[in-house]
Every structure is written in C-alpha cells, then in structure tokens.
C-alpha cells in the first residue's frame, strides 16, 4: 500500500526520531509512505480569523500539490500539520468566497511553474493521521501478525493533546473527551494501558516559548497525573508536546521540586520496537529524560547497543 506522506518541517529537522520510527513502522506494516514531492510548509497553525486568506493558502497549496500527484490521500505524523490541513479542507468546502480567492491565487502560482491547474474544492484530498491508517487499513486486531517483540506489560499513558482532537466536528479523529486510538494500539502491542484524567488537557502548546512559567504548570500537571496513575512512560504524537513534557522536565524539577523522571516517547518509537525495528533506529538516545533504563528494565532493548 502506497500513500503520499507529508512530513512537515519539524519531522525533517528536530523530530527526526519521530519521523524515522514512523517510517520504519510503516514499512514493517507493508505501508509505503512516499514523501510528497516539492512539499511546502503548511503554516503550522490554522488561522482563526475570517479574513486571513494568506494563512489558508499555504496549507491549501500542499493539498493541491498532492492532487497534482494524482493522489487522493495525504498522511501526516505531526498533529499541527494534520489539524491545519484538515481544517483548511473544511474551510474550502464550506466557504465559497474563500475557495474562489484561494484557487485564483494558487492557479496563478502553479501555472507560473508550468503546471495545469484544476480547481480544488476541499474534497479531493483526504487528510489522514498515520494512527488512522493503522486503525482503518491494518486494524489493531491484525497487528499481532506483525509483532516481533511483545511490549511485556510496559505501563503506557497515552497523551493525546489538542491538535488531533479539536475541533471534533471538523477533525472527526476520535472522541474529544475520551479518545482511545493510542490505547487500543498499545493494548495490541502488549502494553498495560494507563488511563489518566489529563490525557486531553493542553500541555501549554507554544505558550511555553514566551511564557515558560505558565506553560510549565500545565505540563507538570500532566506528568504528575500520569505518575499518580502508575505510568512508566507517556506516549505522545506531537513534537511540541514532547518538547514541553520531555525537554522541559528539568525546569519542572527546578521549579516544583524533584519527582521521579518520566520518560516521554513518540507512539511510533514503541510501535517500531514492537515491530522489530532495530533499537538503534528508534532514536531512544535523543531524549532529555533517557527512556533506555526503563526499556532495559523490561528487557525491551539491550544495554550494549546504546
């Protein structure tokens, strides 16, 4: 199964281990995620005011590019990309005036590049998150045929954050209050599922970059909550969540006092491990809170190959 893949800039820059483990997992599952040629930035955030055509144009360009490749689907890993691309589809479909203006602009743009332009209405390309591809194309029940290493009851708290879930009526990804897609995945991989009340609370998002003190509190609440419910590790889907929960854990200790370290892993790293991807390709060494002692204690990785 071949599907175009939109990495987005973070995946090729600062979340290379997320990207690599995601691609390796896909390959092990027989899915070929093919990088979209000539992809451009989606702009990261969906513009919430109604007259910001420029903010809609960059994500729309990505979708038009996908269509030029004769594809009807586009897969992402980054939840910000997922959110932005999917919301733009919704906006184009439901707002004729925006659709007209954006198409007029992009037509000009693509024709200058020498391509023939076809009007894009917001329905031609379906945006999918890799988790949805696993759920809907492979099926969690069928994962057992692919599993090489059972994850031996590793206690994983799935943290969903915001961008995959909200607004529910546009994204339609999972239940906003009580999502389960990652929990179902980890149950299939042999993990013990830790349900915890903070799984959909925002971690502070990019507020951590200009009001670090405020965001630190939001992130700390999430870690503490997972700890109280007995998690060994928190699984995330977003590199900004990873930054706030992992990279900033040192600052939390300084501010709130020491707590036991909580490893933060991308869901794809655990998936890759279960699918038999060599541990060196999973990027476990690239975390602020080192997850290797935990994974070694469960005999999921070996110490030598650090």
């Amino acid at each position, binding site marked *: 199964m071949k599907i175009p893949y939109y990495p*987005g*800039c*973070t995946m090729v*820059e*600062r*979340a290379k281990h997320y990207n690599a483990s995601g691609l390796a997992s896909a390959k092990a599952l027989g899915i070929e995620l093919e990088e979209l040629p000539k992809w451009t*930035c989606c*702009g*990261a*955030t969906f*513009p*919430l*005011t*109604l*007259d910001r055509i420029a*903010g809609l144009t960059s994500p729309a360009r990505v979708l038009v590019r996908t269509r030029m490749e004769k594809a009807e689907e586009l897969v992402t890993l*980054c939840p*910000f*990309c997922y959110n932005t691309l999917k919301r733009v589809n919704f906006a184009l479909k439901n707002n004729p005036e925006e659709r007209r203006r954006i198409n007029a602009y992009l037509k000009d743009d693509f024709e200058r590049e020498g391509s023939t332009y076809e009007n894009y209405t917001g329905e031609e390309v379906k945006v999918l998150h890799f988790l949805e591809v696993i759920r809907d194309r492979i099926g969690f029940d069928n994962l057992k045929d692919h599993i090489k290493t059972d994850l031996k009851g590793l206690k994983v708290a799935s943290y969903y954050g*915001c961008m995959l879930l*909200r*607004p*529910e009526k546009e994204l339609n990804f999972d239940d*906003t209050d009580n999502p389960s897609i990652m929990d179902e995945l980890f149950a299939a991989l042999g993990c013990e599922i830790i349900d915890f009340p903070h799984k959909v*609370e*925002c971690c*502070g*998002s*990019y*507020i*951590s*970059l*200009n*009001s670090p003190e*405020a*965001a630190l*509190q*939001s992130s700390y609440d999430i870690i503490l909550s997972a700890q109280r419910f007995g998690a060994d590790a928190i699984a995330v889907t977003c*590199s*900004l969540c*990873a*930054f706030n929960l992992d*990279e900033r854990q040192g600052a939390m200790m300084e501010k709130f006092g020491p707590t036991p370290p909580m490893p933060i892993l991308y869901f794809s790293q655990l998936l890759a491990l279960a699918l038999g991807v060599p541990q060196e390709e999973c990027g476990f060494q690239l975390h602020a809170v080192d997850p290797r002692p935990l994974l070694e204690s469960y005999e999921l990785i070996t110490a030598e190959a650090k």
Partner: protein
Amino acid sequence: MRLKISSECILGNFARRVEKLSGQRLLTCYQCGNCSASCPMGFAMEVLPHQIVRLVHLGQVEKALKANTIWMCASCITCTVSCPRGVDIARILEAIRFLVLKERKVADIYGPAQAPEEMLQKAPLEGLTGIFRKFSV
C-alpha cells in the same frame, strides 16, 4: 469589578469588528463560564475568557486588552468544544489579538529577536511558527 456602562458603548465599533472577524455573535454567550472552567491556561489569566467576551460586548475594551488573557491563550480549542451555546470562543480571542496587533496597541511583540537562544535551538518548528504567528498579522 466596577464598570461604567452607557447605551453608546454597548456593542460598539470594536465589538462589531470582533464579531465580523470571528464570525461569532457576542450576545450568543450567556456567561455560563464553561469555557473558562475548561481552559488549561485559565490559572495564568488575569481575566477569564468568558469575562473578556462580556467586557468587549459592553465596550470595556481597555479593560479587556489590559489583561494578559489573549496572550496566555494557546488556541487549544478546549473552550470552543465546551461551549453549550456553540460559541467558537477561540475565534473571538484570536479576533481580539488580530485587532490589537493590527492597530499596534501592543508594545511587546514576540519574534525571533525576543526568543531566548535556547528556545530557538531546541524548540520544535511548529512551536516557533505558532508563537511567532500569534504575534503577527
């Protein structure tokens, strides 16, 4: 909080522009406070999101803009999905930010020049793009 209200200031120019930019009617909000109760950044806000809606509606723009609320908002959309009246309050806050930035009513723009080196080196790009776009129109 003491407010001086007259018929001239209710739903004034600023409020109308917020309504137009956000596509939301301010009066649809019946001030139940669900949005503020669900807001993950509420603890750090000087005035809560639902109070901002009412202040803008009543023409108390200075008070609404003096608070740190719009800058603490992470656009996480939790408020929007909690509103029993279907008010997209995240859009209202964005519209206010937009107007403030457009009219240069804010002194402390946050851009690459203001970000600490450590953040620029380590933060993921969607975070940097997100925060910089929040301070630009």
